[in-house]
């Protein structure tokens, strides 16, 4: 018996995938071709249209992971756990990509690949938490226990995230004035439209990937369960004869 949420996902996921493709292509066209280069940064600024949406989506994914984990501990529905598992992996990928694009952007503008800036530091801590989460899942054999422990870790990490952010921000700003901040750069509407387009597109892409991955994990578990049942039936029938 396939969960009814899986059927609903099957019906809906095409819309999300299509919407993502549409928004991302429109955003890329507007950002890379249509919009003017930045006065200070020149063409380099265009990586912003990828970097900022990636970072937003990473945080959005982590919020979904937190919501899913609370939901799982409350309802104990295995499909919610599949969703959390899929979400954590995606969140890790988006976080890593946001860090990578940030570093590529940082080299020409700040003249360094890496600086212990508040946002960079909190993102790398987030990435470490997510990798720990994925590692934890591989070290537990019992699926129910795996789901429970993973949910506990995700909730703790989510609660920690604002505290990490504030502590790192104070830590840096106390020592030296924050030299770089994208807050300082005022964004005109010509840049805002493609940025918005890309943000929506990335979130839709994330939702689409989340749906596909959840389906995959759910069906894999179903298959394993079915295989186990068939095998035990087979052995039982052999014992009988």
């Amino acid at each position, binding site marked *: 018996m396939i969960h009814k949420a899986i059927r609903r996902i099957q019906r809906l996921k095409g819309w999300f995938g299509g919407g993502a493709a549409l928004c991302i292509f429109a955003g890329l066209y507007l950002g890379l071709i249509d919009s003017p280069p930045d006065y200070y940064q020149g063409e380099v600024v265009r990586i912003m249209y990828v970097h900022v949406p990636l970072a937003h989506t990473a945080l959005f994914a982590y919020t979904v992971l937190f919501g899913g984990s609370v939901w799982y501990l409350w309802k104990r529905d295995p499909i919610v756990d599949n969703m959390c598992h899929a979400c954590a992996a995606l969140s890790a990928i988006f976080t890593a990509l946001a860090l990578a694009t940030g570093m590529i952007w940082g080299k020409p503008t700040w003249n360094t690949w890496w600086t212990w800036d508040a946002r960079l530091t909190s993102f790398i801590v987030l990435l470490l*938490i997510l990798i720990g989460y994925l590692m934890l899942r591989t070290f*537990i054999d019992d699926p129910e226990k795996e789901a429970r422990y993973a*949910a*506990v870790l995700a*909730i703790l990490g989510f*609660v*920690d995230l604002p505290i990490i952010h504030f*502590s790192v921000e*104070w830590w840096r700003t106390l020592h030296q004035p924050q030299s770089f901040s994208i807050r300082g750069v005022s964004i005109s509407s010509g840049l805002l439209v493609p940025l918005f387009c890309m943000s929506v597109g990335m979130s839709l892409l994330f939702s689409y990937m989340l749906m596909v991955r959840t389906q995959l994990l759910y069906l894999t578990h179903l298959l394993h369960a079915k295989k186990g049942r068939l095998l035990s039936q087979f052995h039982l029938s052999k014992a009988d004869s």
Partner: protein
Amino acid sequence: MAFLKVVQWIVWKDLVTEIRSRETISSMVFFALIVILIFSFSFSMNQQAAQEVIAGIIWVAFAFTGIIGLGKSFSSELQNDCLESLQMVPAPKGAIFLGKVTANFAFIFVVEILLFPMFVIFFNLDVIEEIPILLLIFFLATIGLSAVGTLFSALTVQIRAREVMLPILLLPLVVPVMIAAVEATKGALHGDPFSLYRQWVELLSIFDVVFTVVSFWLFEFVMDS
């Protein structure tokens, strides 16, 4: 109060076990001494350089030794199926959590008290006036470390590769504790006025409150069998 009684018994049990075996605290102290030794090799220590890095060294040593103690806290329960018994105790799981946190806190704090004079001697620190404030910083940081650490100790003890997973899961989450503790300790060792590093002490208190409450609630799901 049945709840407090359970907390009390858990603390009593852990303390008696420790007093009889002296395993946890002695291994933590010797490990920390080795960490101090390694650090003194790694940095060329003149008086001025020591002033800059000593707070960091103190907290790296404390965090690593704390992890040793936290790991032992639940792995010692594996013998004779004590963990299963703890899961079956007809008492609120929160009481077991608070008992374990208190015991772990006591071990780590005692080790810190024993080690701090070593730092003072080896690195020529001048700290007589700052001792009360340093004790407060150690106290607050150790509460946060042992609250989250106890939860993860209970969690990792039931999985494969537990010795590796405890630090991997715990250290990123206690980043705020480490930053705040290092900054506050640095301030105190420099002899700065308290108002300069007050916010770090406040951050430690906030972390303690938030994480004791959240871990207390989540512990129930970890001990569920």
